């Protein structure tokens, strides 16, 4: 048999799989390892999905997505971010941000082009760059700088081949958020070196201190940015697989070509449910965000009490504490915490080499579980000391 493609061979098998299988097979685990909301999609949105089925909406839609949904997305971007996107040609509805990320890279990257990824980062970026036959160039960040990239660190890694910079704030796994001023400094760099930016803003609604700044709203950035967002986190709709990309006509038109030959369209029921989320979901979204915010404070205070120094996350639903005081590596910490206390966290090195020495703890869990998990982490740390 001939081997599978070399491209795939270059993608390392995920080392975390075994640990994840262990979590999934351990009974009664309290898991802080979850990357999705613990809320069920608000009922009014679920009802819109049910109604879509009842009314026989079971067909394809336009490859672009329902015009009704694109118009609502356009209005929400204008209202929330202050950026104008034409629903005809500048917005593409996708099956989640994951798809949008993949096709954006495929559209922008030629073989050998370099894509800058700021780590610790979500795990899909580097493999997707590879699928597009690009080369990832990593910019590490530090806890002492609140996991924000230093502009000169980015500049140092820019070459003739650099084409795209991927930004994702609020950040998974660190919870970092950049201020408008910090984003503007990056925007200047993007202008200077004529780069594209893929801005994954899926956690935008989950910003706790102050307003979210949409990267494409910055001066001159709309044409350079492919803005990715969706419904999974803000409206607890992960399983619906619905998101979108917004950008210049040229890029979105090209993304549409990939999308129409691969995905065709996002599921129509999900599109109709997303319409309901945009029309009437503000209240449910706000309530969930308020609840996350309380858990966030509880999480950070609890981790600090357990002796784990923790950068105060300002967005998303993750805390990314340093585990240096434990004397263990990220993987050892996570494995022993699971084995000894039945609490699951994700080792920070999964998100890049500079994530070593940290673990990702999700606070998208009930207060009851969160309190119990923090108590167990504290016990774990005390037993390590003793």
């Amino acid at each position, binding site marked *: 048999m001939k081997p599978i493609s070399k491209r795939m061979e270059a993608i390392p098998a995920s080392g975390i799989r075994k640990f994840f299988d262990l979590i*999934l097979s351990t009974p009664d685990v309290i898991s802080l390892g*979850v990357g999705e909301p613990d809320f069920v999609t608000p009922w009014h949105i679920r009802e819109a999905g049910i109604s879509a089925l009842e009314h026989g909406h079971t067909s394809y839609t336009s490859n672009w997505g329902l015009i009704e949904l694109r118009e609502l997305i356009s209005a929400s971007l204008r209202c929330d971010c202050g950026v104008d996107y034409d629903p005809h040609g500048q917005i593409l509805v996708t099956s989640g941000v994951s798809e949008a990320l993949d096709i954006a890279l495929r559209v922008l990257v030629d073989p050998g082009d370099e894509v800058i990824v700021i780590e610790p980062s979500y795990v899909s970026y580097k493999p997707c760059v590879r699928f597009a036959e690009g080369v990832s160039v990593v910019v590490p960040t530090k806890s002492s700088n609140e996991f924000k990239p230093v502009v000169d660190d980015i500049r140092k890694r820019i070459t003739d081949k650099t084409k795209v910079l991927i930004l994702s704030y609020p950040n998974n796994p660190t919870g970092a958020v950049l201020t408008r001023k910090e984003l503007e400094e990056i925007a200047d760099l993007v202008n200077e070196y004529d780069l594209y930016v893929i801005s994954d803003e899926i956690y935008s609604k989950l910003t706790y201190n102050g307003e979210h700044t949409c990267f494409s709203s910055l001066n001159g950035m709309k044409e350079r940015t492919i803005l990715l967002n969706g419904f999974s986190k803000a409206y607890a709709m992960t399983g619906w697989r619905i998101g979108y990309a917004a950008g210049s006509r040229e890029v979105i038109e090209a993304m549409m070509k990939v999308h129409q030959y691969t995905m065709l369209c996002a599921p129509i029921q999900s599109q109709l449910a997303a319409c309901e989320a945009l029309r009437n979901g503000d209240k449910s979204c706000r309530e969930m965000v308020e609840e996350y915010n309380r858990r966030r404070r509880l999480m950070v205070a609890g981790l600090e009490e357990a002796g784990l120094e923790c950068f105060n996350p300002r967005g998303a639903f993750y805390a990314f504490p340093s585990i240096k005081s434990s004397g263990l590596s990220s993987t050892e910490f996570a494995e022993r915490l699971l084995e000894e206390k039945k609490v699951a966290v994700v080792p920070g090195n999964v998100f890049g080499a500079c994530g070593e020495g940290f673990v990702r703890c999700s606070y998208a869990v009930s207060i009851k579980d969160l309190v119990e998990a923090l108590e167990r982490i504290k016990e774990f740390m005390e037993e390590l000391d003793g």
Partner: protein
Amino acid sequence: MTLEVDVLEVLEKDARMPVDEIAKMVGVTAEEVENLIRRLEEEGVIQKYKTIIDWEKVGREYVYALIEISINLTEDEGYDGVAKRIAEYPEVRSVRLVSGTYDLLVVVREKTLKDVAYFVADKIATIRGVRQTVTHFSLKMYKEEGEILYQRDEGGRLAVSL
């Protein structure tokens, strides 16, 4: 959101949440939360801490009835007079003045169906001003005080994802 509202929202969901935890959640000291709660109690903002109980699970059967009451207004007594008379009975769980085809909606809890029937006939119908009553016996309770009372099967989120 003010600190006051933040703390009240936490307590509305779980009245037994320890002060220490609330303090962490809202980002102030435990002492501040304690003082705030004491003030809210004194001012009557926090009326009482009670428990939602599924009495059926310990074998105690209650009969609940919703009673629609229509009132003849007289010169010397408005709705308030009748409503307050009804509210004083311990069997009565709630009393509301409502818009629509009747005036008061009253929820009564008793041990037996007969108890409710006698209560309505003897105590409610005889109040001066009560013109008519319509009694609905409650057959099954699905949600009380914002809490779902039935078992639900809500998805199977994986214990870990990135």
